[in-house]
């Protein structure tokens, strides 16, 4: 027998989780679609469901003393877009997720929990080393989003844990981002690319690259990034960077696109951004 539990507080939810293996329902925009059967038929769940999407104590956006932005897990995309303290790069990415209606329902924690390589918010989260705070009756732990997501639909969540907060660590980066989908609005990503960088006295003091939808998870490689840190921007060899990422980007064929197209677009976006980065140095 499948139980559905609507907790009245986070503590109530944690207690339930400590004794039940369940689906955690936030906005439901992934789960309700995945479990949908047809009109007038209940969605088909194969284990208990815990509804935390409307827990007010998990809906907040605040800044800590170090300038990090702390987001209560159940904050909707629409509220992130309205907040003056959420960094612009996240807003740029969120504006291109789904449609206004979906953004009024869905959460970033759901995007993380769904662990899809096409999860758009994962790209800036991983590029910026964002963290999630996991809670259970036994305590709390903090993981980077890149450590939380283990593969397609696989996460590091233990059965008794729930993400309660997302931490956007303060960064001083400039960004170049592009999402490519079938149309301008409301489309699942075929390829996305985000470059983050910081230039000081003509030197590239920070350099990061992330790709979405072209591997089992978001692609980011610290070894490659470190190779190009602290070099003069004019010495950045675009072809060499591209050849470094060439093998790493491993898209698949699916109903939305094919691997050759995805690979080509990923490399073209990277080239365009690297040229922009180099061109912008004299500004």
């Amino acid at each position, binding site marked *: 027998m499948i139980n559905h539990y609507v907790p009245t507080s986070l503590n109530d939810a944690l207690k339930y989780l400590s004794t039940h293996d369940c689906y955690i329902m936030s*906005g439901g925009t992934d789960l309700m679609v995945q479990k949908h059967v047809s009109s007038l038929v209940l969605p088909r769940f194969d284990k208990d*469901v815990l509804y935390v999407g409307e827990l007010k104590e998990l809906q907040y956006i605040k800044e800590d003393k170090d300038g990090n932005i702390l987001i209560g897990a159940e904050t909707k995309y629409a509220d992130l877009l309205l907040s003056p303290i959420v960094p612009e790069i996240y807003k740029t990415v969120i504006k291109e997720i789904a449609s206004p209606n979906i953004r009024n329902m869905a959460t970033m924690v759901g995007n993380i929990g769904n662990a899809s390589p096409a999860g758009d918010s994962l790209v800036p989260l991983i590029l910026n080393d964002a963290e999630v705070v996991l809670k259970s009756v036994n305590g709390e732990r903090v993981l980077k989003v890149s450590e939380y997501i283990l593969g397609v639909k696989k996460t590091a969540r233990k059965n008794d844990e729930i993400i309660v907060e997302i931490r956007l660590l303060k960064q001083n980066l400039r960004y170049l981002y592009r999402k490519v989908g079938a149309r301008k609005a409301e489309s699942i990503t075929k390829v996305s690319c985000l470059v983050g960088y910081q230039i000081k006295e003509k030197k590239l003091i920070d350099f990061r690259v992330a790709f979405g939808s072209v591997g089992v998870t978001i692609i980011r490689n610290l070894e490659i990034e470190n190779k190009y840190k602290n070099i003069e921007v004019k010495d950045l060899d675009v072809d060499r960077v591209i050849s470094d990422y060439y093998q790493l980007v491993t898209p698949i064929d699916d109903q939305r696109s094919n691997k050759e197209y995805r690979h080509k677009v990923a490399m073209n976006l990277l080239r365009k951004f690297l040229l922009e980065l180099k061109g912008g140095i004299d500004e």
Partner: protein
Amino acid sequence: MKINFKLNGSNVTVDVVPSKRLLDVLREDLHLTGTKEGCGEGECGACTVLVDNRPINSCIAPIANIANKEVITIEGFRETKAYRVIADAFADMGGSQCGFCTPGMILATYAVLRDNPHPTEEEARIALSGNLCRCTGYQAIVNAVLKASEKGIKL
């Protein structure tokens, strides 16, 4: 489980499984069939309703997430002045043909104009990007939004 919410201004209580879709609660339990089901997967906006004054897709909203909220469907929205302005603009500009997308389009139009009373054509298109229409080709709908914006939806 008993779930309370406000529907078109009145308090209602339904006794249903918490995973039941708001759309099915409205159409089956409460017999309000103005809200339509198109795709059933969040992509077309035919099932748009307002929850706490924001448009959402009721086909993927579990009723558990609606507890203690305020829902307005096209039946409730009909009683407002804003409805009159928007519905007239749709009629004038040919923004409705078969009418299946229209309840959702009208509520989405209301939400657009409330947040941005004078949208550009491009802004109107982006704001309605989650509402699909198989008949009009969209131009007539965008024209209707712009026309309603000219008249202004007094709230």
